[in-house]
């Protein structure tokens, strides 16, 4: 395929002179490679085409990773710079100095307070999230594959999506009282509709030919779900997890503000009560750091591991 587009840039009138020139420059190497593959195939018809795949260069990979990290660091530095600039225009009670705020962060972390509070909040998010996932994945797949279930569950799921997280939090606390259950339930109920919708829509877009293939090879229902359907939903699930985590954090902080005696939300309220912006920001920052670790560390790692079968999209390469 590649060889066709390279060899006849004339056919493609839309190409500018410049790209045509680039294509021409690339032509000889591509041709040579293809020819070599062809020659090899003539000699050994059964074990061929291997030579057409060039080894991956490790160096290019490392440089690309460094570039990615560099950009991320630059983005964070830019945000700090804006913060620092703002301290010139506002009193410290409203915009505390970054350095003071970070020393507050250091204090929170060094006393160990951070770990107990963050642990409580993380547990609430984690349990609520797990409950929502356990219900959403099967329900989403069923809604995407069984028409009657789709019709039946569509209204409640759509309605659930429009309900604000704050309302769920209030309702769950009224229902279960001020305890862990209400926090778990509020998180689960808030993110459940969003998770279900993305899995349901994802299931509807899976490749039906692959289902036929698995039927032709007598795959059982479990194998169809695990080997054929779920892998096609991976990117939908990961996107839903990312978005869902964002929602879950917001709800759990609200629940904690209502009268829990620990958790990040409670600490933020305490900061508010003594009108200490420094304390509010310090807790918010620790929170953000944990988010970033989860987002880039855990989910990013998970994604690259699960989708290593997929060649990278290089749409803007010239």
């Amino acid at each position, binding site marked *: 395929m590649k060889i066709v587009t390279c060899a006849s840039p004339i056919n493609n009138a839309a190409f500018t002179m410049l790209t045509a020139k680039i294509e021409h420059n690339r032509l000889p190497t591509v041709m040579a490679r293809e020819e070599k593959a062809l020659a090899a*195939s003539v000699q050994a018809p059964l074990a061929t085409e291997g030579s057409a795949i060039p080894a991956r260069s490790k160096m290019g990979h490392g440089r690309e990773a460094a570039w990615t990290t560099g950009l991320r660091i630059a983005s964070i530095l830019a945000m700090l710079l804006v913060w620092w600039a703002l301290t010139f225009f506002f009193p410290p009670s409203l915009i505390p100095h970054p350095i003071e705020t970070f020393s507050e962060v250091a204090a929170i972390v060094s006393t160990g307070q951070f770990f107990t509070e963050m642990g409580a909040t993380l547990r609430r998010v984690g349990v609520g999230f797990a409950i929502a996932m356990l219900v959403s994945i099967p329900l989403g797949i069923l809604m995407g594959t069984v028409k009657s279930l789709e019709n039946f569950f569509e209204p409640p799921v759509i309605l659930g999506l429009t309900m604000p997280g704050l309302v769920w939090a209030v309702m769950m606390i009224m229902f279960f009282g001020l305890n862990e259950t209400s926090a778990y339930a509020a998180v689960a109920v808030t993110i459940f509709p969003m998770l279900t919708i993305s899995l349901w829509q994802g299931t509807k877009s899976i490749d039906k*030919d692959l289902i036929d293939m698995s039927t*032709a090879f007598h*795959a059982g229902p479990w194998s169809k779900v695990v080997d054929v359907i779920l892998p096609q939903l991976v990117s939908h699930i990961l996107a839903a997890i990312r978005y869902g985590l964002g929602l879950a954090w917001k709800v759990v902080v609200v629940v904690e503000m209502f009268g829990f005696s620990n958790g990040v939300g409670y600490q933020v309220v305490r900061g508010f009560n003594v009108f200490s912006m420094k304390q509010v920001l310090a807790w918010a920052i620790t929170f953000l750091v944990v988010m970033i670790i989860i987002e880039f560390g855990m989910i990013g790692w998970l994604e690259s591991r699960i*989708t290593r079968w997929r060649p990278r999209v290089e749409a803007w390469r010239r």
Partner: protein
Amino acid sequence: MAYVQVENAVKYFSREDGTDMLVLDRVSFDTKEFGITCLLGPSGCGKSTLLNAISGLERLDQGRVEVISNHGSAPSHSPRLGYVFQDPRLLHWKSVEENLTFALKGMSIPHAEWSDRLRKYLEIVGLSEFRNQFPLYLSGGMRQRVGLARGLVIEPEVLLMDEPFSKLDQLTARRLREETLRICEHLKQSTVLVTHDVEEAAYMGDRIIILCARPAGIVDILENPLPPGARDVDDLQFIAFKKRLLQSVLKLMEKDEVPS
């Protein structure tokens, strides 16, 4: 050894407006016990529907399809069919080897036989060194070979192939045709190959069944005068046979175009 017997196959598809369209009109034929039976017909004539009916993916409205095994099969025994699709239909998130074990698992092949079979059939299609590769890192021709190996690894009683070479470039298709012919000859199983390509039918088919379009019905059944080893696309005898096939197909297409 086994072969497929199709008797009075009738199939309707429902159109959007609720009316029915006759796709298969009382089709009956037997496939060869050894070697390749080609279903040759124009595009959209219901060849693939017929193949899906044989595989059980599609249910017939009338008539029956039976896979007849010679070695005293119990009535409950469901025949083992291998399917090679037009697009290879691989699971892209599984390696080449895992794509084959997916079929082995589905067909309940005892676990103890897996490694021997994987080695044997990956060797046959020439992909031994790529067994841990993911399909999207392979070329189109190699992916199609994985599809072929997956059809073969379950050691099917009948191998079904639905235009397996039509999406490949000419050179790759030609080479794969040669290899597939050699593999089928070597494994001596009943194979059904659907194609719209007259040369492919003449080259691959030991028996060629010509179907007409909408509804599909059998127009002609021809036996290939040349044994698999003697088929050479440049040979005069081969060209003569190809011509005969082509004339049959063209004649029926002309009939098709006459407004009724």
